[in-house]
């Protein structure tokens, strides 16, 4: 107890120096928190756009489908399969899809498009696509029409009420062709989907591709990544050939690699910042130890064991680091909180570049506890590392030499 008190009071013997050191930690933590929050926010947005507007967390396919996304690698709708999947605790609902490619023509323009045959009601429950219609209306019942991404519509120069022609290869090589009225234009957060996606009612898609009662995937909707991790091994265990269960992580390994590589580069930047912080604290601690050499000698003379002295200096280092972290986190929380609710819109070339990469042109922030806990852990580790120096100096200190100052 007394060691804590002594350490805390020692900290304020040179207020200016302590405040300068704490400030260096404070600014470092603010920068790292903002950087970490921005990074994680962007990743979360990417993942959220992917799983909430396209893939879902888990999908069931024919075992060959993901490597060769041909409609020939589809499977038959099956109530028993659905029941088997739904029996797993944690799965909210399941969405059937038939997905393939086709050429989409409107007037003189033609573009390749991804045609997604969906169960309207269930698909809307996952993607809220009805709310993303910016022109026209959502499909209803066994609607003969299609919904197309607003960017795709721009390219084809078509609008609501116009007719588009779809042309592609159907099941087992049959020719798939048809005319469909455009019922609505949608705008999803993922710019890539806006440029190439066409929604169609499932039955109509099956007719178009000559793939009656066939599906390319069942999308399994779970609440979040945590539940996915719990449910995934159970599903993999329960569902056997010719089906295969894949998580979004397995379906989009490139995205994970991209995130990991981005995290690594950011880690280098944070590392540099933390090294600066570390040397700031180390400098102060070195001065503290050198200045108080005589005092340490006295403490040893009156009967204080060296390791207790070292612990006192460790507490001082820890207090400095923790004061910086706590103040830094208190300072960064409102900023991060504000930007979490109000992402920064990007403009100009950066926005275009982001859209080209398939990302929303916004700087998103994350409010995850991990972003802040990481800073605490990093500064705590720094104080441990920095404490090694005074610890070694004190343990090597000779009482009589220390008394000479």
């Amino acid at each position, binding site marked *: 107890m007394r060691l804590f008190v002594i350490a805390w009071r020692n900290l304020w013997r040179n207020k200016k120096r302590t405040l300068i050191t704490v400030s260096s930690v404070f600014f470092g933590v603010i920068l790292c928190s903002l950087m970490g929050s921005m990074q994680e926010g962007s990743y979360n947005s990417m993942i959220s756009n992917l799983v909430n507007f396209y893939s879902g967390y888990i999908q069931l396919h024919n075992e060959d489908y993901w490597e060769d996304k041909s409609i020939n690698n589809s499977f038959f709708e099956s109530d028993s399969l659905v029941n088997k999947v739904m029996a797993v605790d944690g799965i909210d609902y399941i969405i059937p899809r038939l997905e393939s490619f086709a050429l989409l023509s409107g007037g003189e323009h033609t573009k390749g498009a991804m045609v997604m045959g969906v169960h309207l009601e269930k698909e809307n429950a996952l993607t809220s696509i009805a709310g993303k219609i910016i022109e026209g209306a959502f499909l209803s019942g066994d609607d003969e029409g299609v919904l197309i991404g607003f960017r795709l519509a721009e390219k084809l120069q078509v609008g609501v009420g116009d007719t588009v022609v779809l042309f592609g290869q159907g099941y087992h090589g049959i020719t798939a062709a048809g005319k469909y009225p455009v019922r609505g234009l949608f705008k999803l957060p993922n710019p890539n989907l806006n440029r190439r996606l066409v929604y169609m009612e499932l039955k109509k898609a099956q007719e178009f591709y000559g793939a009656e009662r066939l599906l390319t995937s069942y999308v399994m909707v779970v609440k979040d990544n945590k539940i996915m991790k719990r449910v995934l091994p159970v599903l993999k265990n329960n569902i056997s050939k010719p089906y295969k269960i894949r998580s979004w992580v397995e379906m989009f390994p490139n995205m994970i690699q991209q995130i990991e590589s981005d995290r690594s580069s950011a880690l280098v930047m944070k590392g540099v910042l933390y090294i600066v912080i570390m040397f700031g604290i180390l400098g102060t601690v070195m001065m503290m130890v050198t200045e108080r050499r005589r*005092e340490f000698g006295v403490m040893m003379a*009156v*009967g204080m064991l*060296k390791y207790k002295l070292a612990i006192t200096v460790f507490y001082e280092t820890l207090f400095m680091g923790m004061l910086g972290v706590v103040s830094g986190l208190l300072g960064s929380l409102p900023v991060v909180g504000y930007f979490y609710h109000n992402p920064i819109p990007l403009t100009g070339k950066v926005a275009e570049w982001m859209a080209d990469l398939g990302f929303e042109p916004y700087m998103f922030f994350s409010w995850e506890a991990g972003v802040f806990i990481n800073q605490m852990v990093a500064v705590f580790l720094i104080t441990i590392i920095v404490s090694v120096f005074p610890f070694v100096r004190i343990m090597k200190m000779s*009482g009589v030499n220390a008394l000479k100052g």
Partner: protein
Amino acid sequence: MSIIRIKNLHKVYSQKQIPVKALNGVDLTFDEGEFTALVAPSGAGKTTFLNLLGGLDLPTEGSVEIGGVRIDQLSSAEKTKFRLTNIGFVFQAYNLIPVLTASENIEFIMELQGISKRERAVRSRELLEAVGIPDKANVRPLQLSGGQQQRVAVARALASKPKFVLADEPTANLDSKSTENLLDIMLQLNKKENITFIFATHDARVVKMARRVITFEDGKVINDEVR
């Protein structure tokens, strides 16, 4: 009865690779309850002698035995623990812990000994009364005069109920009134609690009050006078 036995004590320092003999074959014994002054000009080995006696330094040759324990043969941690329970130190520059109040400085030693909070508070109050500054319990060292700081230092030295107190020039920075007060206090404690006091000094006022005066010259005892 001798509580301290010093035999053939030598200490050689190396200054810029030139050996300097600080102590050159000292043989001494100290009895319980002594009030002794070690007198010598500067550099004659007084402080070195006290450092060896307190286990702060290692002799080049010879032995230091206190209460049957060869402290020159103890490890660093053992010596520290030995000092904690057997030896009190009073330094020329007071050397109080600046961030602790007077009573906290006194209690600090007792806390290291593992004495309970209540007992510490009682003894700290008693000691501050004994050294004549009970009203300064909650004052930090920098707000005390030199004399008051040295009184706290004496109280701190006595906090652990040591067998003897080593005082290195304790009056060097004090005016004559403070010196007189401090010596009176130490003499009273010596008589009342039978604590052995050994002073390294060249202050005539201390020498005058000492019951035994040992004179050092060139690292040797040249005179040992019991009054």
